[in-house]
């Protein structure tokens, strides 16, 4: 009955496996950072590789750029306040009140995230730029002077960023509000406290750590954000750290050491913020919020339901509907104005976009990269999640920390390190899609890892152990139990990675080569160098391509499942 022959067969020691995996992750993640730091300390000839001399001059010299750091903090702070207010209001309305259509709105709240800051920035530039913005055109047509709104300001950038991050804040704060045991509030009311007192003394203190955590997280993301600041800030010569870095690197002659010093400083601040965020989330105050699922107590707010409904519609309106409509409208215009005329409608932008080799190849490259990143990423990140949460490797915590590391590094900064690191790499991958693939796989490690490990953690370990007790070998278990159970999580991770890759800007814009362009940087280039209308068409084509690719994949996958099922 018992098979003993292979009992002593060789298996790689867990220590060896974890050292290999940890080492590989460390190289992928830390290698570019090391080069970033090295570049920031180079004080000789800025073009020399490796640096001729080391020193702190670049950091001292950052004093001249104090206003840029000030700009960054201003935009990030404004956007964070706005995003958290939006997230808190929407979180409270959608999880605690009987506003009509709650369930539908909760689903729709994911949409702003998919609109991306770039789309939002393009759309709001069309809507609210001081001269040609639709809003200002209408204002002047109504007899106004100058301009009513100006999107090319810190406020404008913060506005666009907040609309996007609002949905992130909503997800984080809404989760906290939902996971709070309503009995805690009920206990307060039973003891005689009124609704307001309960809200102030019980509800707020309980959700405060969650709100604070969301604020810190959003602030950290804002510090490293790039696309909105680029599209909206550049026309007004308003720079934040990421856009200033981009300028320093892409100008001639490039000033790598100064850019690197900026990157290191930004990285240090963001790393601290992410660390604070983790501290808040794991602190003791959070234990009241258990993982247990409660039916959230819904408050009857009476007639206030309708204003609340208005708030929900308004947010989705300015964050999703208005931007998408604006881009769509502009893409069908010869020359975009706020006042549609029959003769102004055209398909020529799409014709141009589709006939340009550059656009076609960039779109093709992006889809190809998306496919590769998602497929390799799911395998890689799935393996890593399994290793960390299931195999009880020594040092799993350290590997997890390394994996989540890219979260604390703005993608542009990361790409900067990559630029230096891979320029001297013996295999010539610089300027090819291979480099972008490596970068995508690295910067999206936290995204894929989080998604997959979320599912792995939900799958009770005993489901796998039971298969083992039934006599199934490692491979058999993986095929019959682990993989089928993980399937929804793997598909979700695949989709997220695919979408994120196709729309990546911050890293791609620095690293793509002239012969291997990808679509998002091409859109930005087009915005600054060709027409607004063509750019709108390209942005819409990108979105359509993503949707089409996903639909196609779903159809193929469904057929495969049906064929395999019978």
């Amino acid at each position: 009955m018992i098979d003993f022959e292979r009992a002593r067969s060789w298996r790689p020691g867990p220590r060896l496996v974890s050292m290999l995996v940890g080492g590989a992750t460390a190289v992928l993640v830390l290698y570019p950072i090391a080069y970033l730091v090295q570049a920031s300390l180079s004080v000789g000839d800025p073009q020399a590789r490796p640096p001729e001399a080391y020193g702190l001059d670049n950091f001292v010299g950052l004093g001249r750029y104090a206003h840029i750091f000030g700009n960054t903090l201003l935009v990030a702070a404004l956007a964070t306040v706005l995003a958290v207010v939006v997230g808190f209001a929407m979180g409270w309305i959608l999880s605690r009140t009987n506003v009509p259509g709650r369930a539908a709105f909760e689903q729709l709240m994911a949409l702003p995230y998919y609109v991306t800051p770039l789309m939002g920035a393009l759309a709001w530039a069309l809507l609210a730029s001081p001269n040609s913005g639709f809003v200002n055109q209408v204002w002047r047509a109504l007899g106004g002077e100058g301009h009513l709104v100006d999107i090319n300001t810190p406020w404008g950038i913060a506005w666009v960023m907040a609309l996007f991050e609002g949905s992130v804040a909503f997800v984080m704060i809404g989760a906290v509000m939902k996971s709070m045991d309503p009995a805690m509030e009920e206990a307060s009311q039973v003891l005689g406290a009124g609704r307001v007192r309960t809200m102030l003394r019980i509800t707020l203190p309980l959700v405060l750590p969650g709100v604070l955590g969301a604020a810190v997280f959003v602030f950290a993301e804002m510090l490293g954000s790039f696309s909105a600041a680029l599209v909206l800030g550049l026309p007004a010569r308003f720079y934040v750290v990421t856009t200033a870095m981009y300028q320093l690197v892409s100008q001639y002659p490039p000033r790598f050491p100064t850019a690197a010093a900026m990157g290191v400083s930004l990285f240090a601040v963001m790393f601290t913020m992410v660390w604070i965020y983790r501290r808040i989330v794991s602190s003791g105050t959070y234990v009241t919020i258990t993982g247990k699922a409660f039916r959230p107590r819904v408050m009857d707010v009476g007639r206030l339901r309708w204003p609340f409904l208005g708030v929900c519609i308004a947010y989705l309106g300015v964050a999703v509907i208005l931007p998408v409509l604006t881009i769509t409208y502009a893409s069908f215009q010869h020359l975009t104005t706020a006042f549609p005329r029959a003769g102004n409608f055209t398909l020529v932008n799409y014709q141009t976009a589709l006939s340009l080799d550059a656009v076609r190849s960039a779109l093709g490259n992006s889809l190809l990269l998306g496919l590769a990143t998602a497929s390799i990423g799911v395998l890689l990140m799935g393996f890593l999640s399994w290793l960390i949460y299931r195999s009880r490797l020594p040092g799993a915590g350290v590997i997890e920390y390394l994996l989540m590391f890219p979260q604390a590094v703005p993608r542009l900064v990361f790409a900067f390190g990559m630029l230096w690191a891979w320029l001297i790499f013996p295999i010539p991958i610089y300027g090819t899609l291979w480099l972008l693939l490596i970068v995508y796989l690295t910067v999206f490690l936290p995204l894929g890892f989080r998604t997959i490990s979320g599912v792995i953690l939900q799958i009770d370990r005993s489901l796998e152990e039971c298969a083992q007790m039934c006599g199934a070998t490692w491979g058999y278990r993986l095929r019959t139990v682990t993989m089928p159970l993980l399937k929804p999580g793997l598909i979700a991770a695949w989709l997220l990675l695919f979408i994120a890759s196709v729309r990546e800007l911050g890293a791609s814009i620095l690293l793509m080569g002239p012969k291997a362009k990808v679509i998002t940087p091409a859109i930005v280039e087009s915005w600054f160098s060709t027409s607004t209308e063509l750019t709108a068409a390209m942005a819409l084509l990108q979105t359509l391509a993503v949707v089409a690719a996903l639909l196609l994949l779903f159809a193929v996958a469904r057929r495969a499942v049906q064929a395999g099922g019978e």
Partner: protein
Amino acid sequence: MARASIEVRDLVVRYGGVVAVRGVTFTVGAGEHLTLLGPSGCGKTTTLRAIAGLEKPASGEIRIGGTPVFSSAPNVNVPAERRGLSMVFQSYAIWPHMSVFDNVAYGLRVRKRPEAEVAARVREALDLVQLGELESRSASKLSGGQQQRVALARAFVFSPSVLLFDEPLSNLDAKLRAEMRVELKELQRRLDITSVYVTHDLEEALAISDRIVVMRDGGIEQVGSPGEIYDRPRNTFVADFVGSANLIRGRRRPDLERNGLVVLETPGGALVHGIALGRQVGPEALVAVRTVRLRLERARPATAVNAWPARIRQRVFQGDFTQYHVDWDGRQLIVRSAASDPMTEGDEVFVSADPRHCVLLEE
């Protein structure tokens, strides 16, 4: 069906720096039903998982059917899937993406049995757990009790040499648990298979075991038949954990001891006669007497020893029995009585106990 014995010797299991099991030794005879009983964190589940092969011990030896499946010297560690055991998990571990039939058939398909045999044996197993009509149902649509039965059928269908149970009934409600206890016992006897059962529930352990191993803090406190464990607890931990007991402390009175009985004098001067079972204690000692073994009477009973005056302080009616809190010797005793003639609070009564039920403890 092969029935295998299990020998566990000097088993030590560590989690990082924490020692979960510290040098445990016991054997399970072929066909015997052994239970590991103890509070949570006592190492019982860890011991079971070490036998299963799901936990790698730090040292010691585990033999199944005489063959070592784990040994620290020489180095042997047979992976769980090749130990020929089976296990019922606390969470049931029913695979939600399979039908009831596929869940149960899993172990047979792993062993590449012909599909006709698989179908026949799965049906037989499902009939045995009274789920015959549910075989095509999706496993995610089962009640807790049904999942429990599927987990059982899945565990024994491929004729393992040993069945391991990890608190299999702890997720059921009290009524269902009592029913399943009886069913499980019948099934165990019918399958005639060696089993190791882990539970923290005393009644469960008493009901289904041939022998019980009481564990605490990673070590063994006592090994014995259910009767021995219940009536002759070795120390205060077992006496306390295994059902409710009154512990009475007193000074030894060797001058009064005869007929093999031990005599303690309480601080209040009462004399308590008990059995020593050959246990060695110092001049101060403890005896345990189960709350159900104490009798309450209105008149002084005719027994020569162990009858003391007392007063009812509180009466708690609990249905099957009534629990009395009795003032005795400057402290309280708890007495559980199924008598139909209820005492009332304040009554002057006599408490008595057969010396055979007053057990000297090793502390």
